[in-house]
């Protein structure tokens, strides 16, 4: 089956994003049309400041476009109320932030547990077990009781990844998840992402500067100056 035939998990059409500060107007995105199919592993590339993070934020329902529409499973997200959006983010979306954004006041394992706190019907021990599993996947079992400030940049990044995958989201958005990692660790993370994609059917959009990692995904969207300037399809099929 081709990725094109899959239903879109998320679709942007005519999306513009304008940032207004006191005097300055920055057009971060202009006329973006992107469809991401369920089960796809998409990479996003582009120079610094080209709008990759902005795009990812909109795909992850963390930000709203100035113009244009965002549809999740074919439904316009404007129609969702605040707490419906919160619920969707909690159940369906996982985010790895470019600058990690760990909560420094709590231990690593509690950081990873964070998304599960907002999910109903989980006991404390279930949350703990899931968090430890996620930490095992990123190879951090020995650091669960540490505080984020006691970890290296790469370790913090892996905590951020564990937090993003702990809730088994259907859509994973990762902003340079391997940016601070050496190539060996980067490969391990990529392996985790590929496993999530292949075995759990997670849809993934990942920002990267690494052409090699991008080539291992299904497709690369190239962004320049707020516009999509290229779309390289590496694999025509989503491997089961």
């Amino acid at each position, binding site marked *: 089956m081709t990725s094109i035939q899959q239903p879109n998990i998320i679709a942007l059409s005519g999306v513009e994003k304008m940032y207004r500060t006191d005097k300055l107007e920055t057009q971060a995105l202009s006329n973006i049309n992107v469809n991401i199919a369920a089960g796809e592993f998409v990479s996003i590339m582009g120079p610094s400041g080209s709008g990759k993070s902005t795009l990812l934020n909109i795909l992850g329902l963390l930000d709203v476009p100035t113009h244009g529409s965002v549809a999740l499973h074919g439904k316009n997200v404007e129609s969702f109320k605040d707490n419906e959006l919160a619920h969707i983010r*909690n159940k369906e979306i996982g985010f790895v932030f470019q600058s990690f954004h760990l909560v420094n006041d*709590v231990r690593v394992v*509690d950081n990873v547990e964070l998304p599960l706190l907002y999910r109903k019907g989980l006991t404390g021990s279930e949350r703990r077990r899931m968090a430890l599993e996620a930490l095992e996947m990123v190879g951090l079992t020995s650091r669960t009781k540490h505080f984020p400030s006691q970890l290296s940049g790469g370790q913090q990044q892996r905590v951020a990844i564990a937090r993003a995958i702990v809730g088994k989201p259907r859509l994973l958005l990762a902003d340079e998840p391997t940016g601070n990692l050496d190539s060996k660790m980067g490969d391990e993370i990529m392996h985790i992402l590929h496993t999530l994609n292949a075995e759990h059917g997670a849809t993934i959009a990942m920002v990267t500067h690494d052409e090699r990692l991008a080539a291992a995904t299904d497709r690369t969207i190239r962004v320049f100056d707020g516009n999509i300037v290229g779309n390289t399809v590496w694999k025509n099929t989503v491997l089961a």
Partner: protein
Amino acid sequence: MLRNYLLIAWKVLLRRKFFTFISLVGISLTLATLLVVTAFVDNIAHPPLPFLKTDRMLFVQTMMAKGGDNVIFSNAGFGFHDKYVRQLPDIEAIAVIGSGIIDAYPSGQKVRMNVSYTEASFWHIMDFEFIEGGGFTEEDVVNVRNVAVISEETRTRFFGNTSALGKMLPIDGKSFRVVGVVKNVSATSFVYSAIWFPITIDFVPEARSEIVQGVGGGYRSIILAKSVNDIPRIKNNFQTMLSRVQIPTPPFTKMYGGATSILESHAMELLSMSDEDEDFGTRNSLALMIGVLVAGALAFMLLPAINLVNLNVSRILERASEIGVRKAFGASRRALVGQFVVENCILTVIGGAIGILLAELFFLWFAWIDFVPHTTFHINYRVVVYAIIMSLVFGLLSGVLPAWKMSRLPIVSSLKGGINV
């Protein structure tokens, strides 16, 4: 979930020590002050001995008499209590009490003393702790015997620390035989006195028939109902009785007042003295007093609360990134507000606990300087309950607003705001 909130709250409080310290100082001083007031009120509402049967007691105190343009507020004459109040049905006992101040000269030095004149039933209605002897009897009263019950303090003044029973007490050129010695009661008590005499000792000939206070002086009375359930009926009957009272002394034609519970009586004393409305004694002064106290407490908390709101806003702003992350991972606004309010309430409850300690220390100092003679105030379980309630109200008051504001920040700006912290 809650465990998680508590954990993070604890960490945050420890990490921002200066903020925590400043907040706690403000909160605990505010709550300590409120607790001191609360303990005072509690002491009035639930007085210690000799008030044991307080829930069956009604007090007839200040009355208002009107006639034409004339109004007086005063305790009624003996005749009013004797002829009218005493006749009310469902009453187990009534004690009429007059009070005065006398100069006595124990060991040659002049001492001013509060004294009371009352009936034998007084010793039945009140539960004094007798160290020696007992109350005077009806016979003593009827026969105008020169006997007296004295307080422990008075005994010490006149007789040192020896037994006083049967000894003669020299007052106003007369000698009174001591028939009983009671433990000291608080100076704030309704029945505070140094010496109690039979009521007849004090009578001028007119006293027996006076309705409105006259040369015979004013009297109060304490009614003991047969049962708590009779209280509302007695109060109603009191009003019916009032409408039938005949006042022989012009210009007054009508009396107003009420038979009120101990708390209502205090409320009346505090609130309705100078007001000439005809519902004097029957209007709900208690509700008004409670309203005033609660409003006062809220007003008193308002400024520190605003202060705490400000501190909170900056504290929560520092955690913009955390808020952004939580929202990104699905925290609803309600969950976020809940978290910050819980955190804030932890702070105020700790502040409340320190406040209790401060208030207790204050009371120790109070007792040490003997500010209110023979009175020890304490933070009892009721006051602790009030303290918890006040702390939580304070926590909500100061926590909800900043939390709600912060939870409205868009996710992306929250995350950006947190980057450099």
